[in-house]
């Protein structure tokens, strides 16, 4: 049975065989009849409509223009746009034959255009890789800053393949322009322009503020403070530190769990903040500091002495920093940074925010000449609270028994001394005695460019950048300004934007530098660090031993999460989870007052999307068996997901491994995120689920349905045809499989449609309206006709056979596609076999598999 799956895989892989003669024969047999019958009348030699002709010989799809025309034709046929309305429709068989010929020819052409079998086309960095690379090259790191700078670049999402697939990448003017914008912005953070940033510092000791207010409050006669929960705290004047400047004003905003209530004030320890129950908007429990000006640039650093008051069995408090203006439109506060506070003893947390990168309403702030800095507790509850008694509908407030954030003191500073930030030494070396400006620029550029280009810069290249510097100086710019222009040019240069691997026509091994780059972008999603560059420099990375050592070192680093996240995100279509929020009416302000599905909490969806990446990382680092990814007796979860799955997780922080409950023993196959992504929030998601399993877990690509079939989602069919309602879901699916043209694919898809019958669209056990679990039937048939009676049999069929299991074969194809950064061609089948054999020899784990791929010939040659 494993064989026949393999055969299916080979069918896909052999697509790459370039044989022009066969190609033409196929064309004449499969495509020409349809064209002659349906197309040539309008698109022939005589006045071709739209100037498009289909009466020629077999086309050469390696010509991009020709390929574009034929792929468009394929799409129009598939969607039924052509032939136009009123003309006879082609039969499904004709359509399938023609469409698959075009697809095959396009795949073959892709191999040719990238330089032949086993090669990859020139690859550009993906958006995420580019953003990470810019940070690393400029020595910037803002681990707590919120916001995704990748969204400033045009999206590089590519359907059905990985965004690092060199064949599918496009480079357009907009990308270059936005890249330049981003590079200039980040450069301004790394090397602030001389003399533009005005430094300041404010120190706030909340203990003394609280002590004073509390003393005054308690000194009031009992009768006077009746009905008041605590003293108001507002407009407390905080003088600017040392260098002078206008004072800022401290305030505390109350709300549910009000920090203004006496029980939240402690003259010795400080002030305690309950979590904000609001989705977006004004943070109602917040400490605010209103600066009487808006800083123009630089990096704002906020040091907070804080601790977690863990009175309850719920999530740890999250220290969040936001910017807002009290008079601002909609009173919106823009979150700019956050960190989870787990220490129960007070300790210092440092949040750094580069101001030019903070996305907020600067226009309003500047207009009001004020920046309101807010600190609040942004902890999302582990689960939506099901305690309606804690909700006061009149006040629209919840009184939550949640963990509080203790604030003892904080300091807000922006420093602009010439040596700060010290990180800028990474970009611009300090001057040496007796060195003139140009010599310094040249020395600094040599160091910077060698790092940026991931290899020693050539003199010719260096000269060009030094010349740019010189020209800028000649045009009257200052030293730093002119130097920055040269660095900005480097950051958008082709040497940085592309992984350039110069080569002749014949295949040859990568250089040591190129191996270091490939490895770094594979395991870290970013540019090589000093150690990797050193191994490139001494050439040692070319040896198996060193390559193995470096891969292990990279996987152990936290940056490896970037790899597993990117790979799983695209392999399992996890981005979709964030958008799957079926419409349910709910209050927009308060999320805690409903006992609705946990799904509607953004934090849950974020964690579900991250879960596969954590599982894969855990499997890589511990070299767990490949099949454990879908057949594991444990789960890797955080507190929130543990709650979602109903498992007891021992106390701790972060993502931990714990024994799986009965219904979650399928690894990725029982993760709610995968199930939800597969189901697409459809009430009747069987077909979607089947396609997801076939494509992503069995590695069989399903062609899009032919356009002359009137396809409607199952629930629409149900709504339109009442007779269908008498059928069970299974009978309904069986019925549509009796149509011959549908059966071709659906006999592979549908029998897998009920594997997840146990789960609803959110990956939770299916329940009826009364909340009772409903009966389910997970039985089905695999495309190779192996049958299973329930989920555990399905899992067994998928996972049996070690590295030759159905799953392991499909998984290794997907992973290899990502590792190589190109679609696989027929030449790779041999390599994949060797890789699996080698991986089995290394122990058969996921790390062993990845290692075998990294050591394989296609990875190390160009």
């Amino acid at each position, binding site marked *: 049975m494993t064989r026949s799956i393999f055969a299916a895989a080979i069918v896909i892989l052999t697509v790459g065989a370039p044989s022009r003669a066969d190609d033409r024969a196929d064309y004449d047999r499969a495509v020409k009849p349809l064209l002659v019958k349906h197309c040539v009348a309008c698109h022939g030699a005589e006045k071709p409509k739209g100037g498009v002709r289909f009466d020629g010989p077999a086309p050469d799809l390696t010509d991009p223009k020709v390929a574009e025309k034929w792929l468009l034709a394929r799409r129009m046929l598939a969607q039924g746009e052509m032939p136009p309305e009123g003309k006879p429709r082609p039969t499904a068989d004709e359509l399938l034959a023609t469409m698959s010929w075009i697809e095959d020819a396009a795949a073959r052409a892709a191999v040719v255009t990238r330089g032949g079998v086993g090669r990859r086309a020139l690859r550009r960095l993906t958006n995420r890789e580019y953003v990470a690379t810019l940070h690393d090259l400029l020595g910037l790191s803002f681990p707590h800053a919120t916001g995704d700078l990748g969204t400033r670049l045009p999206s590089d999402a590519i359907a059905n393949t990985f965004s690092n697939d060199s064949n599918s990448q496009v*480079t357009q003017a907009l990308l*270059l322009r936005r890249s330049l914008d981003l590079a200039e912005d980040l450069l301004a953070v790394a090397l602030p322009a001389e003399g533009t940033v005005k430094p300041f510092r404010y120190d706030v000791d909340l203990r003394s503020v609280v002590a004073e207010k509390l003393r005054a409050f308690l000194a009031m006669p009992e009768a006077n403070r009746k009905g008041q929960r605590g003293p108001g705290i507002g407009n407390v004047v905080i003088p600017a530190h040392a260098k002078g400047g206008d004072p800022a004003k401290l305030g505390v905003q109350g709300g549910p769990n009000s920090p203004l209530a006496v029980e939240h004030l402690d003259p010795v320890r400080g002030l305690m903040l309950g979590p904000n129950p609001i*989705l977006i908007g004004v943070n109602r429990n917040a400490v605010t500091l209103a600066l009487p000006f808006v800083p123009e640039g630089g990096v704002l650093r906020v040091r907070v002495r804080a601790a977690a008051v863990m009175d309850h069995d719920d999530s740890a408090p999250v220290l969040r920093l936001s910017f807002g203006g009290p008079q601002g439109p909609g009173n919106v506060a823009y979150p700019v940074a956050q960190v989870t506070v787990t220490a129960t003893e007070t300790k210092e947390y440092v949040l750094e925010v580069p101001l030019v990168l903070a996305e907020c309403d600067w226009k309003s702030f500047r207009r009001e000449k004020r920046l309101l800095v807010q600190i609040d507790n942004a902890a999302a509850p582990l689960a939506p609270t099901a305690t309606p008694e804690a909700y006061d509908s009149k006040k629209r407030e919840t009184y939550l028994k949640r963990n509080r954030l203790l604030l003892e003191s904080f300091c807000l500073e922006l420093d602009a001394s010439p040596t700060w930030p010290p990180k800028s030494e990474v970009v611009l070396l300090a001057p040496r005695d007796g060195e003139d400006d140009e010599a310094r620029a040249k020395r600094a550029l040599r160091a910077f460019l060698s790092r940026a280009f991931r290899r020693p810069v050539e003199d010719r290249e260096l000269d060009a950048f030094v010349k740019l510097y010189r020209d800028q100086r000649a045009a009257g710019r200052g030293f730093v300004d002119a130097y920055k222009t040269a660095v900005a*040019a480097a950051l958008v240069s082709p*040497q940085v934007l592309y992984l350039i691997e110069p080569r002749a026509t014949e295949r040859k091994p990568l250089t040591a530098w190129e191996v270091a780059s490939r490895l770094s972008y594979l395991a870290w999603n970013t540019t090589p660090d000093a150690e990797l560059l050193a191994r490139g420099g001494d050439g040692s990375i070319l040896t198996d031993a060193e390559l193995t050592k470096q891969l292990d070192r990279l996987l152990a680093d936290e940056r490896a999460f970037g790899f597993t996240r990117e790979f799983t995100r695209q392999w399992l279509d996890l981005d979709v989870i964030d958008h799957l929020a079926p419409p349910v009416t709910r209050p927009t302000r308060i999320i805690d007052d409903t006992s609705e599905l946990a799904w509607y909490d953004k934090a849950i969806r974020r964690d579900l999307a991250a879960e596969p990446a954590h599982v894969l990382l855990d499997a890589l680092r511990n070299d767990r068996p490949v099949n454990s990814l879908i057949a594991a007796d444990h789960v890797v979860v955080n507190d929130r997901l543990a709650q979602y799955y109903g498992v007891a997780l021992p106390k701790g922080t972060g993502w931990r491994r714990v024994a799986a409950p009965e219904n979650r023993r399928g690894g990725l196959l029982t993760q709610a995120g995968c199930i939800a992504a597969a189901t697409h929030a459809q009430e009747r998601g069987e077909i979607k689920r089947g396609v997801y399993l076939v494509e992503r877990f069995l590695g069989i690509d399903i062609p899009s349905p032919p356009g002359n079939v009137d396809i409607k989602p199952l629930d629409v069919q149900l709504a339109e045809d009442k007779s269908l309602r008498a059928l069970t879901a299974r009978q309904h699916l069986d019925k549509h499989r009796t149509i011959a043209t549908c059966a071709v694919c659906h006999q592979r898809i549908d029998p897998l449609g009920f594997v997840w019958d146990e789960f609803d669209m959110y990956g939770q056990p299916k329940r009826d309206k009364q909340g009772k679990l409903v009966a389910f039937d997970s039985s089905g048939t695999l495309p190779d006709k192996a049958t299973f009676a329930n989920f555990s049999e399905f899992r067994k069929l998928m996972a049996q056979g070690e590295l030759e299991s159905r799953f392991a074969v499909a998984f290794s194809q997907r992973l290899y596609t990502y590792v190589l950064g190109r679609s696989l061609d027929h030449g790779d089948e041999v390599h994949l076999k060797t890789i699996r054999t080698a991986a089995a020899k290394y122990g058969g784990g996921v790390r062993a598999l990845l290692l075998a791929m990294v050591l394989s010939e296609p990875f190390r040659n160009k």
Partner: protein
Amino acid sequence: MLTRRNVLKAAGVCLPLPWLETLAAAEKQAKAPGRAVFFMVPSGVNMWRWHPKALGPDYKISSTLAALTPFRKELTIFSGLEHAKGAGGGHYEVGVWLTGNEKYKSKDGPVEPNTISIDQHIAGAIGSRTRIPSLVLSAPGGSVTTSFDAKGTPVNAENNLRRLFGELFGSPDVLSRLDRRSSVLDLVGEQAKGLSKQLGKNDRQRFDDYLQSVRDVESRLQADRGYFASKPLPISADNLKLDVDPQSQRQDYFQTMLDLVALALRNDQTRIVSILACGSGHEFFGQWPQFGNDTHHRASHATNYDTEAQRPKDFALLESVDKWFVAHLARFLERLNETKEGESTLLANTMVLFGGGMSWTHNPSNLPMLLAGGSRLGLKHGSHLRFNPHKDHMGKLDRSAKVQETTICDVLRTMSERLDVPADRFGDSRRSVKELLG
């Protein structure tokens, strides 16, 4: 009538002669391009005096709209216009006005992303034909806007007139900034050419994409540079009121903003503009001293379905605010109308959608909206059109007239189609509004 005097009046400043010659040259183009302006004034109106009573071409203009009398033949007034499914109720009006997205709720920031707004939809198709793809303006600025991009995030709105001026006519350091970018592009272009030689044939073809991008960005840069260099600050900013405060100096603020918009359209720097007067219910314009420092939003809430006699003060306040904005609109239309473009006028080539997203007491039905200009784009004006059964002043559903069901998205789509940008599935749209077409 493009006379030197008129342009000067429009700019409110002295212009050097070469600029006028450029204008004249631009005029010789065979066909002037189509433009669209979307101008929203939120928070409701005095419904007793906004819509004319009679329908058809012979309506008597209402007191609120009286200032538009000179443009009767150039505009269409709508009754009964609304979004499908009553989208955009209450203060959600701003995010829904140009998107028609019934699911969008935005009081304290969006709960989920919006969908694209029509101005960005159009700009996506034809924006690249002008130096600035689209202008997004609002008095509060930032994310308070009617414009949303393809991802549904608000397009950052400009509210600073000095920056707007800089964008349109350059700022003192614009040329040096462009020069620097230009040197950067020269360098990376050269690098790419050098590297290209080391690459195989196939990779070299892919590399051409990069070189092409460099050339494209460079040519936009050259366009900017040529534009800014040919008329280095043609308008002296000194005479423009660019630093007025939108709240305390609203008269000057709006006048200057609309003048700048008219100039930008005139100069074909952009063809798509969205303007938002203020956030819905934000009381952005604060108090109106002539009404004892009362606020517009409060009055709008207070009026309910009452008669004017029941709430004279509130209705009077609403009416005066309505008239204030209509006067600005009239002045703007006049600016467009007095600018000749070949045989026609700028107004004939510019569609201006004006109105708000509230009627009676924050209701999203029978919205006060009108469409002006664009007769050369195929719009037929001069009527008061009525669509959809809608609630009358008593809050009862009025079914007396037989009317077509038509949504705002249908109107938006029709405008888009007039600019040759298909929008047949835009929002909830089901049809083009044929009643508007000549």
